[in-house]
């Protein structure tokens, strides 16, 4: 299949996807569970992908995602709350200090930039640390950010520990799909570029990467900043979805959850992240809800089903994946149109998988 054909097919599929979404939304209604799940899942997909960009493609183990989401969400909220309701929202802080209103798209991008800027500062400090120490240090920074955002002295900007609300959200499911689609495209283009190869080189072998002239610190910082930029945008979108923002909800538990979704999808596979996000959100918010409700088959009460059981089932599934299917759903493979096309038409040449080369000694 040549390149032109690929591009045409991709464009057709994308248009079909959006048309499908538009029709579905008209058919089932904006408030149906399907649309709600799609909205949340697509935002999670972006967040999980941004974690995967770090963890899967650059080998940086960060647990600070929630901190950058917080920055994005707050930036978005602060700059889009209409002047008229600021007095209400900032009830304890005389209507707040910031009286600039930005268009939604600009506020989202600004959220990403603020997150990226903080990532730059934080990365300067922590990126010299190795795997698990890096994870703990980023987790620590996220917690510090959370405390700072709840600080009374910054109340004029952040509304202290109180909730931010009354900012614009999105009505249609198409909005998050377009934004996330653009971000994911950018990320995919990046990881398939020369920079993506440099990230992977660092992930595979830092010393060899350095010997190839790749500056470890600079490249790691770059990956960290870019990932945080998308985390910031994801945070902003999440704010739009939730319609409220509160610092105390951006806990390390949120980062862990997103990381575990990335593991389910396969560390090192962007499409895996997307698929896992959709499955996770749908199961969590919709399909597995019934596990939390006592149920009867005739007069027989199904055992175990009560509040909290869904989460137990979930954590067991996650542990099974972590222990027995470390590759997750996709491993490091990507789901691609070309791949499917070739599989269907049988064009794909058989690739040699790890030939047990004679005389291999290490």
């Amino acid at each position: 299949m040549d390149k032109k054909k690929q591009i045409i097919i991709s464009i057709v599929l994308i248009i079909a996807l959006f048309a499908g979404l538009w029709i579905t939304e008209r058919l089932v209604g904006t408030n149906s569970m399907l649309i709600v799940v799609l909205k949340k899942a697509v935002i999670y997909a972006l967040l999980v992908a941004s974690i995967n960009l770090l963890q899967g493609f650059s080998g940086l183990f960060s647990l600070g995602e929630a901190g950058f989401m917080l920055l994005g969400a707050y930036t978005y909220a602060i700059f889009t709350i209409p002047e008229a309701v600021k007095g209400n929202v900032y009830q304890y802080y005389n209507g707040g200090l910031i009286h600039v209103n930005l268009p939604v798209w600009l506020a989202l991008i600004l959220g990403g930039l603020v997150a990226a800027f903080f990532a730059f500062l934080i990365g300067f400090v922590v990126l010299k640390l190795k795997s698990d120490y890096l994870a703990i240090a980023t987790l620590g920074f996220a917690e510090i950010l959370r405390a700072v955002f709840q600080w009374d002295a910054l109340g004029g900007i952040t509304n202290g520990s109180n909730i931010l609300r009354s900012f614009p959200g999105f009505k249609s499911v198409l909005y998050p799909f377009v934004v996330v689609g653009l971000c994911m495209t950018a990320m995919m283009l990046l990881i398939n570029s020369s920079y993506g190869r440099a990230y992977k080189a660092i992930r595979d072998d830092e010393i060899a990467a350095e010997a190839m002239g790749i500056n470890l610190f600079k490249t790691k910082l770059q990956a960290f900043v870019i990932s945080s930029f998308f985390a910031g945008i994801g945070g902003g979108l999440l704010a739009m979805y939730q319609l409220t923002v509160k610092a105390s909800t951006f806990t390390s538990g949120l980062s862990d959850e997103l990381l575990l979704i990335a593991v389910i999808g396969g560390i090192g596979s962007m499409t895996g992240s997307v698929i896992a996000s959709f499955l996770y959100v749908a199961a969590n918010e919709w399909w597995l809800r019934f596990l939390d409700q006592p149920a009867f088959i005739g007069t027989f009460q199904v055992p175990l089903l009560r509040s909290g059981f869904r989460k137990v089932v979930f954590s067991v599934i996650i542990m099974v994946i972590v222990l027995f299917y470390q590759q997750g759903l996709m491993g490091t493979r990507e789901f691609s149109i070309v791949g499917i096309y070739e599989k269907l038409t049988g064009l794909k040449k058989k690739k040699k998988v790890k030939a047990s080369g004679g005389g291999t000694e290490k």
Partner: protein
Amino acid sequence: MKKLFSLILICALALSFVSCGGGNKDEKVIYIGVNEPATGESGAGGKQETLGIQYANVVAPTVTINGEEYQVKLVIVDNETDTAKCPSVAQTLVSANCCVVLGAYGSALCIAAGPTFEAAGIPCIGISCTNPQVTLGNSYYFRICFLDTFQGKVLADYAYETLGARNIYCLAELGDDYSVGLVNYFCEEFKKLGGNITASETYPLGTSDFSSYIANAKKFNSDCFFAPINIEPAALVIEQSNAQGLGMPLLAGDTWDSNVIATAATGTNLEIAFSTFFYSGANDKTKEFTKGFQDWLKANPDKLTDNGGNDAVAAVSPLGYDSYFVALEAIKLANSADPKAINDALWNVKYTGVTGEVAFDKNGDVDKDAIFMVGIDTATGAFKFITEQGASD
């Protein structure tokens, strides 16, 4: 192994679809959503509030619209006392076709869920959320309890006049609209009366070590400790105040009306007082409710467990009970199951419940002027009625 696992997963998913698809379509059913915490910091209170609603549903399981009798079904979703979960809980209720939603227990939970309901055009009736922000600027949120502005004033009066306190230490949960708000209104009123706030501190969610806060209250020579916080941390504050010899009365708001608090306070040497919506011995109507509710609890062991293992009636239960009937009134008045019509009807609802008169003003609030001050007999763990205060003082 791999196959087995996938098989189990597929079965689980299939089962879920089957369970979702159940239900008889011929039955006339109307859904009322319940957005309450069943777990987390306010889990105990949320469960008691839900019990009130469930009891009301037992008392009045149907409603008549256009001469047809509709079964009322409750859709109860646990919001885990987590404001981050509220929007998705709200979405769940919205997509379950609820025509009106009851709850939630805490103001923060209502504020977090409010915009979603507003966007979907579904009316909500707040039950024990006392922060003014819940209904302000949201034409779909109503509430049937008094406001913190009022509660704060009553508490300030009580502290100043009855307790004779002049220096008060305040403790609130960081980011909790209820406690932060109530402390704020309380402080305003208390300062107006000429009192002094020695310190107003906040603790982060999930704190279990309150010893420093208690030490701070003592260090600043306070003569009253005001802590209108959630039940779980409140129990810890009581326990640690007792261990550290607090030496001043503990004052709180409506959240403390819970048997968890009563249990924690039993056997301590503390003086505890709080304001609340309901006192079971106030009049015949309340006595009748109390008896009916307690009988129902005793008849259903799992409900009794939800109530904390005994049949003490928390104020939020009768409030929940009232909210259900207010919702039914609105449905009858609207004569429709359409959320929009119910929302329009709610403005005109007049209803007298066990916790007082309900009639909504332009914000969707009620003008309740009765508030009960209740204390705890630390020897027996029983609530004792102190006084009924109104806004008139």
